[in-house]
């Protein structure tokens, strides 16, 4: 048992470090180090512009999507080399936020189901940040029940005509392409009538509207499709096989290891170490210590769980299912920590101004944003189902809509 690199890994790390030293955009370091939670913001520039420049530089140096094959814009790196790169990229990795859905989900799907021509045309531009991709899966009628989606695709000659609406699409407003799952046959059970496409987001009939969220921010979008034309050549997988294609996309999402999930613990520990209350420092209060200790072992448990996965990768093995716990643990932690931090501040805990409140409003922001952490990318409940069914081997729930033609399934709500 040790935390050391193998000689090959050490050599790779040295190469990466040297390149970073020469090329990292150091002027953003302080700002990036500060913002640990939620969306990254830069004081004077747009994150997308700075991110694109950084991604381009990485692509030129051979560090963009480095685990992809060289012919598609990568470097043919091994999974452990990708992890080492992420460690060396450090805080600058936050600049790649606009590209993560493309790199982690859309790219791998195109790689698995696209034609060779498509792969050579689209993937290198995705890798270099020239094109940003988004993922168009969720709908008002299909959140956790993704296969309940209603956006229609109807065949007309060599084209498909798309009508419908998607929701919760991150980055749709600055994306160039989108991965789109549609219903092509409503007369068969829901999982069987789906088909996957990709499309140009500038296509006629695509309308992107921002969603004002519960925390007051606008990070996601609704996307409306009105008679949008997609050539059949942009279909990914067979007609009616969209569900299987989407599983590839989602599997890649959950495979991302060493991803930086914020727990709020380091901020909370520092906050409690410095907050003076009537009875002394908050960290000297037994009730607070008990809570801090429980959060501490969750945070360290997640850290060392990812170390176990990295060790598997280092040995060339597939990591076990342990990493499925990450988002489930960290989402609730963020919410609990934010609530307790405000509790410690008493009545002033409700204030959000940076000057009035001890921790510059960070816990108030965490409180308002944390509900989304427990919903986006698989709700806590869906994640528990996945652990129970795929890890523990429990049977699936009985599904009343499983063998019913889609157009006979009742629907309500949004």
């Amino acid at each position, binding site marked *: 048992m040790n935390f050391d690199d193998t000689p090959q890994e050490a050599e790779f790390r040295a190469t990466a470090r040297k390149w970073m030293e020469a090329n990292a955009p150091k002027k953003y370091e302080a700002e990036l180090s500060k913002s640990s939670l939620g969306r990254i913001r830069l004081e004077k520039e747009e994150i997308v512009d700075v991110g694109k420049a950084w991604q381009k530089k990485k692509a030129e140096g051979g560090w963009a999507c480095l685990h992809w094959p060289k012919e598609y814009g990568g470097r043919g790196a091994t999974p452990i080399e990708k992890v080492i790169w992420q460690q060396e990229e450090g805080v600058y990795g936050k600049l790649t936020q606009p590209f993560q859905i493309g790199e982690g989900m859309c790219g791998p799907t195109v790689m698995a189901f696209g034609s060779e021509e498509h792969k050579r045309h689209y993937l290198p531009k995705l890798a270099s940040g020239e094109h940003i991709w988004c993922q168009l899966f969720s709908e008002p009628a299909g959140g956790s029940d993704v296969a309940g989606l209603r956006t229609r695709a109807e065949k007309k000659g060599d084209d498909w005509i798309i009508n419908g609406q998607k929701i919760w699409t991150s980055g749709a407003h600055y994306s160039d392409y989108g991965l789109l799952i549609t219903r092509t046959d409503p007369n068969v059970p829901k999982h069987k009538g789906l088909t996957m496409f990709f499309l140009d987001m500038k296509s006629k009939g695509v309308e992107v509207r921002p969603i004002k969220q519960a925390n007051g921010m606008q990070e996601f979008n609704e996307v409306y499709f009105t008679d949008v034309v997609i050539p059949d050549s942009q279909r990914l997988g067979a007609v009616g096989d969209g569900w299987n294609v989407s599983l590839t996309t989602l599997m890649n999402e959950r495979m991302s290891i060493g991803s930086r999930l914020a727990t709020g613990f380091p901020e909370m520990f520092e906050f409690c170490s410095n907050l003076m209350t009537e009875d002394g420092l908050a960290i000297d209060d037994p009730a607070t210590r008990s809570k801090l200790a429980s959060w*501490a072992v969750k945070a360290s448990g997640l850290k060392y769980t990812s170390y176990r996965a990295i060790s598997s990768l280092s040995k060339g093995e597939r990591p076990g299912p342990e990493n499925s716990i990450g988002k489930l643990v960290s989402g609730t932690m963020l919410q609990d920590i934010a609530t307790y931090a405000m509790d410690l501040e008493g009545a002033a805990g409700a204030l959000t101004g940076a000057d009035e409140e001890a921790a510059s409003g960070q816990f108030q922001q965490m409180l308002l944003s944390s509900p989304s952490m427990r919903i986006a990318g698989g709700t806590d409940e869906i994640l528990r189902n996945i652990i129970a069914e795929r890890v523990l081997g*429990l049977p699936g729930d*009985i599904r009343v809509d499983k063998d019913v033609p889609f157009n006979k399934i009742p629907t309500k709500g949004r």
Partner: protein
Amino acid sequence: MNFDFSDEQKQMRDAARKFLAEKCPPKAVREVLDGKATYDKALWKGLAEMGFLGVAIPEEFGGAGAGHLELCVIAEEMGRALAPVPFSSTVYLAAEALLLAGSDAQKQKWLPKIASGDAIGTLALFEGKGNPSPQAIKLSAAGGTLNGVKKPVPDGAIADFAVVAARTGSTGRDADISLFLVDLKAGGVEVRSLTNIDPTHGQAELTFKNCKAEPLGAAGEGWGILTQVLDRAAVLMAFEQVGGSDRALEMGRDYALDRIAFGRPIGSFQAVKHILADMYVSATLARSNCYYGAWALSTNASELPEAAAAARISATQAFQHCSKNNIQVHGGMGFTWEFDCHMYYRRANATAVTLGSLSYWEDQLIDRMRKKNAA
């Protein structure tokens, strides 16, 4: 990075699991639970023959000289099987104290006997309610004799010798505490068995009356040694707790697959699935914290105090959580004496308070993290 046990260590874990499945089935645990024996003597002998008792004891003292990572994998299996033997008190506490502070003669006298299964040892620390603290130690040592009462002492009624924490000063400082080694069969100690929530592990009260004792380690250094012993034992006990957590989770999962209600396996209900998924989460967090503890223990890293506290807290929480929800998944049958669920529940909650309770270790963790941050 190689944050995992080696293939050889995993083979040892498999061998221990196989051995315990055969020699320590629930039926054997129940012999002690039902009071038919004070501990499983045949199993204790068998563990010695397998080399498990002395796995971390150097060869010069009759052990296998393997190391603490090997001891961790065995501890996990002991917890999984609820082995009703004085393993934790003898191996994690007494042997570790001897290894840390014993003179060559003391090591020569006791360690080979531990490895061969001929001596049971324990640590006599507590004096009634409360957590480890130098102020709580009243038992006095003067002129090589001890006077006072220790309770609870794990496996105290079957132990051959004890490491005893005693007061040798009254300055109010840690230096008031010294450790002594007592041959419990040599007279001067009254032993009274105490009932406790986990009868598969005995607890006792030891009354020392002008009892002869020899110093273990230098005078006034007892508290420092004890702190180290407790840290090392915390990691090893955490592995037992993780083994127990995993087994409780498996029992719940198996029952949920098997039991039919409302015309379907109860494991197909989300309410039951989510209980089991949460058990998996806590067991996984605990295991990962324990691996870090194992690394720190085996390398004697400066991170050990913090790593030990984290492993201990995480594993205590996981075992309590998994064992109580295993009963919940079993429903009414989980609350029968006949089903094994309560044996895990008992062990989880007994191990949660031995070595210092959860709140004690929470306090320790925060102190140690602050110390590290200040440094």
